[in-house]
């Protein structure tokens, strides 16, 4: 079953909330590192959560091109549809 992008985005934002303060508003253009202060260590831990939430493997190598929430949602979508 192909999970649609919007659904992924929604679930991803829910997860990101746990890594940031409650008053931060997350939109697809939000920059993970600069705006959400998700540093390299947090990002690695976030990836493990994403893997479990979406039941996929996210190789760390794929993170090189990920800057925004949209990039990450896109990556998840890509991996999910390739399954």
């Amino acid at each position: 079953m192909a999970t649609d992008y919007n659904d992924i985005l929604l679930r991803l934002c829910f997860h990101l909330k746990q890594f940031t303060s409650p008053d931060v508003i997350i939109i697809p253009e939000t920059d993970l590192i600069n705006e959400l202060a998700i540093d390299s260590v947090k990002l690695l831990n976030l990836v493990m959560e994403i893997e479990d939430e979406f039941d996929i493997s996210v190789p760390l190598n794929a993170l090189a091109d990920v800057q925004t929430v949209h990039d990450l949602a896109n990556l998840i979508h890509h991996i999910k549809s390739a399954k």
Partner: protein
Amino acid sequence: MSLLDKLDAVAAARKALLPEGLEVFGTPIEEVYSATEARVGDRRILFLGTNNYLGLTFAPECLQAAHEALDKEGTGTTGSRMANGSYSGHRALEREFADFYHCHSGIVFTTGYQANLAMISGLAGAGDVVLIDGDSHASIYDGCRLSGAEIIRFRHNDVADMEKRLRRLGERSRSTLIVAEGIYSMLGDQAPLAEIVSIKNAYNSILLLDEAHSLGVLGKTGQGLVEETGLIDGVDFITGTFSKSLGSIGGYCVSNHPQLDQLRYISRPYIFTASPSPATIASARAALKLLRDGTELRRQLWQNSRQLYARLKALGYQLGPQPGPVIANILDSPQQALMLWKGLLDHGIYVNLILPPAAPEGKALVRCSVSAAHTSEQMDHVGDVFAELRKSIFQ
């Protein structure tokens, strides 16, 4: 941002965290008196932050062997193992490591860091997967990057988590290299090797175990976790370093897979670096014999480790999950860790300070490492200082 601006940003971040004039990183050691004592500034200090687990850095056998090699073969090999850098000592040490582990063969590398780089990048490549513990040492992460393989992490020492990730890989688990450590360098806890081996067998993967901190520390003859657990046959490749319990510098890998030898021809960290100096190899060879026969050293090491671990725990410090020669005090903030580190140094005790991002899960660590060369009285004294600092820093 220009290249140099980026470095200025690094400097600014460090300055914000660390007080001026405090040399936390790269602390200048002015004189070394013994395996456990040195001078920092004008203060005599007790080393409690080395990796000199068996205290062999001044062992007469090692000193003598190093002196002889230096006189006979010179200060350096000036070349790669691949070219002019494979002296009789290097080759003998490889055989001695293979014999020590009762394995088919062994390879000596210039450092433990390079051993991991060489092995991981030599075994796995583009299209393969490396599955590593989240708390892995930097050399393992860097080896994975160099390999070009897909890197997947599992939660530290969590075998269910590891299996879940293998299962997701499906058929690709057959081209997966799993990497774990005998004793983890930061928290000092041991890998659940029995479970890891049975899962890797079920999924037909390959397992590499880094015994950097467990060589000389675990097992009857000091092989490491493989000997402690009797599971050497379940591990495909064992790597390790001379820079801790052997008191030298260099790295090794041993294996029963005859294919190990092929890495000499393809592995860049083996080929494109000079081999260890003759004196380095000679002292490592002498130290390996002492390590193998070092039952008494291990007894002393473990007695010291248990003594200090129990004392710190009783004082209310939050420690790694398991006693051992690496005793990590886990602190909630870098500031607290810094105060503890500074307080210990002011009392003449040198330990390691580990700040984020190097500390696991963003915590800060004050990491003690115990040696067989420490005395029980020294452990008592260290405990007393920790007790005093606990009052002044945390209350």
